């Protein structure tokens, strides 16, 4: 540590009742807050699992303002927190500036690529997982119409939608995919009422399965689907338990694993580009006692076959973000 860092760190330590901040890892949640039943909460779950297994503790902060992004990064880095993990693409540009100032600190960012020597960028192949749940939807549908409800309209969510549509059409070329986005601002991540309304709208268009890739908004989607007696597909965490028999499956995005891995590696965090896809169990399809009755053996066999082909490279699922276009779905 430089003298300055020591000084600043000291002032921080002074401010603490228990002066044990140094060397603890830190986790920064984005403005949405950590209890969003989805993305941030998965990260929190991963960290808690780590804490429970190792008995160590970690620092955390939920941001309340834009200016705090850089502030939190710098303060944790200066206080010696290592590694510093953050959830969400919004940290991308800030981390790109801050990381070079703290070469001794390791950073991990989820859902974004930051090209710095001390940063681990964790991205997921959501299109692959979405392709598999799309296949299941395509096989399960009786009306030949399936729905997709996204949260905020950003390329990442279009990536979900595109993979899903490809999967649907691969399994059922006659099917029709209806896609809606909840909104264009971060508020769209947490609007279950609007999610429910969109679900009803899609049901009226004939959809009998909806896939919600919408953070907290998805809770409303799943609820309405269960109330209206159609199937739904959850996202990020395993949401099958929310409405057993109605939630067909969940597209797992193992943010918790990513956080857990980063914490476990600790100060020896492996930096660089970390893609979590089907091959390394970063994404997947949730199967448990809640949905075993509604998923047929035949369906599973086809999904596993497709998964194998994707892992082996025999089959390519188009990634929307690679060229901002989707062959299977119009936005």
């Amino acid at each position, binding site marked *: 540590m430089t*003298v300055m860092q020591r000084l600043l760190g000291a002032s921080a330590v002074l401010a603490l009742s228990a002066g044990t901040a140094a060397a603890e890892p830190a986790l920064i949640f984005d403005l949405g807050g950590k209890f969003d039943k989805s993305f941030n909460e998965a990260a929190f779950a991963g960290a808690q699992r780590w804490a429970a297994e190792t008995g160590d503790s970690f620092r955390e902060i939920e941001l*309340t303002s834009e200016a705090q992004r850089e502030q939190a990064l710098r303060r944790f880095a200066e206080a010696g927190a290592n590694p510093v993990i953050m959830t969400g693409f919004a940290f991308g540009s800030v981390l790109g500036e801050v990381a070079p100032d703290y070469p001794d600190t390791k950073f991990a960012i989820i859902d974004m690529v930051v090209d710095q020597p001390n940063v681990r960028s964790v991205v997921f192949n959501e299109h692959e997982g979405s392709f598999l749940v799309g296949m299941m939807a395509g096989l399960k549908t009786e009306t030949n119409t399936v729905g997709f409800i996204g949260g905020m309209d950003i390329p990442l969510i279009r990536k979900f939608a595109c993979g899903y549509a490809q999967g649907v059409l691969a399994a059922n070329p006659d099917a029709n995919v209806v896609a809606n986005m909840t909104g264009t*601002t971060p508020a769209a991540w947490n609007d279950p009422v609007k999610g429910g309304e969109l679900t009803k709208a899609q049901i009226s268009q004939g959809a009998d399965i909806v896939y919600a890739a919408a953070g907290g908004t998805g809770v409303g989607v799943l609820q309405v689907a269960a109330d209206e007696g159609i199937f739904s597909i959850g996202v990020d965490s395993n949401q099958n338990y929310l409405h057993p028999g109605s939630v067909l499956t969940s597209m797992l995005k193992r943010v918790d694993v990513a956080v857990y891995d980063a914490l476990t590696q600790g100060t020896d965090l492996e930096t660089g580009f970390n893609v979590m896809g089907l091959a390394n169990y970063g994404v997947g399809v949730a199967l448990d006692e809640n949905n075993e009755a509604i998923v047929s053996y035949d369906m599973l066999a086809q999904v596993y076959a497709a998964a194998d082909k994707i892992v082996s490279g025999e089959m390519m699922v188009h990634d929307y973000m690679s060229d*901002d276009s989707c062959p299977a779905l119009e936005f």
Partner: protein
Amino acid sequence: MDVMPKWADALLIPLISIAIAFVISAGVIVAIGEDPMAALNTMVTGALGSSYGWGYTLYYTTNFIFTGLAVSVAFHARMFNIGGEGQAMLGGVGVALVCLFIPFPHWSVALPVALIGGALFGAAWAAIPAYLQAKRGSHIVITTIMFNFIAGSLLVYLLVEVLKPPGAMDPATAKFAASTHLPTFQDMFSFGEKPAFRGAPANVTFFFALVSCFAVWLLIWRTRLGYAIRAYGHSEPAALYAGISPTRIIMIAMLISGGLSGMMAINTVMGEAERLVLNSVEGAGFIGIAVALMGRSHPLGVLLAALLFGFLYQGGAELSLWTNVPRELIVVIQALVILFTGALDNMVRMPLEKLFLLFRRKQPEPATTSPKPAE
């Protein structure tokens, strides 16, 4: 009736209000099992104990000075401009457009142009409610509130559909060119080896905010326009009698108010983020109302109140960094201060006035009776 001396009205009441707010906050902190003294210590050292802390405190202060002045100017014309939030958003658009599309050689050229851009856009956004109030009698509180929502939606549209670089996920503009980046306190005040204000977002805009305080003071208390604004604000019938046009005053006061709100964007958009993001205003427009109320619509009061709220913001951030006080409770503490200084002013004022009266009665009569004239 002037029961209390001016200093008590201007200083004692806010101080007592703040003290009460802190005592109640301390109770809240104790209730969740934390140590209030440690929490206060964290806030004070974090916000004021280092150049870094000051860098953040003054950054927030700058925002609040602009929005507080905006509310004050409108308030002198008895216009309750709740629309600072929307005006600052639009000001951000103005600043962003200027910074994105004009190639500036140096920030010193970019700053005045961006100031004009921000002020024009903010003023334009205030102009519509002002016109509706002046000509159609639509209540300014209602229209400015509604315009906040419209501004929010407009900003979403602009960022998502127009200004967002292709392929980006964040609804935000591209980063501004390096030549528009304003010097931060770190750039300005770091001499020798040790960098001061390291990483803090406070920048040259702060000094411009101070200049604005002085300019608003001049405007309100030293110019004909300010005189007319105050006259209209105190009594519309009297203004009519004196030949002061209400329409003109409403329009001008609201344009200045909107312009000041818009200039806030210089600090957040150009000074800190160096790009326009969706929530660059972050409630500063609303905090401005509390700041103006607490500052008694006087630029000096606004400056001090803005400093207090800057301290609360930065202290709150430190609190959530280093303690387990959840961020919702930090908002509660900030809200308590607003509640006591803004809304519950009379709760402190009344007993204090009684106290002053009691104190006065004990003194010999002639010296203390208010200057009620003899016939």
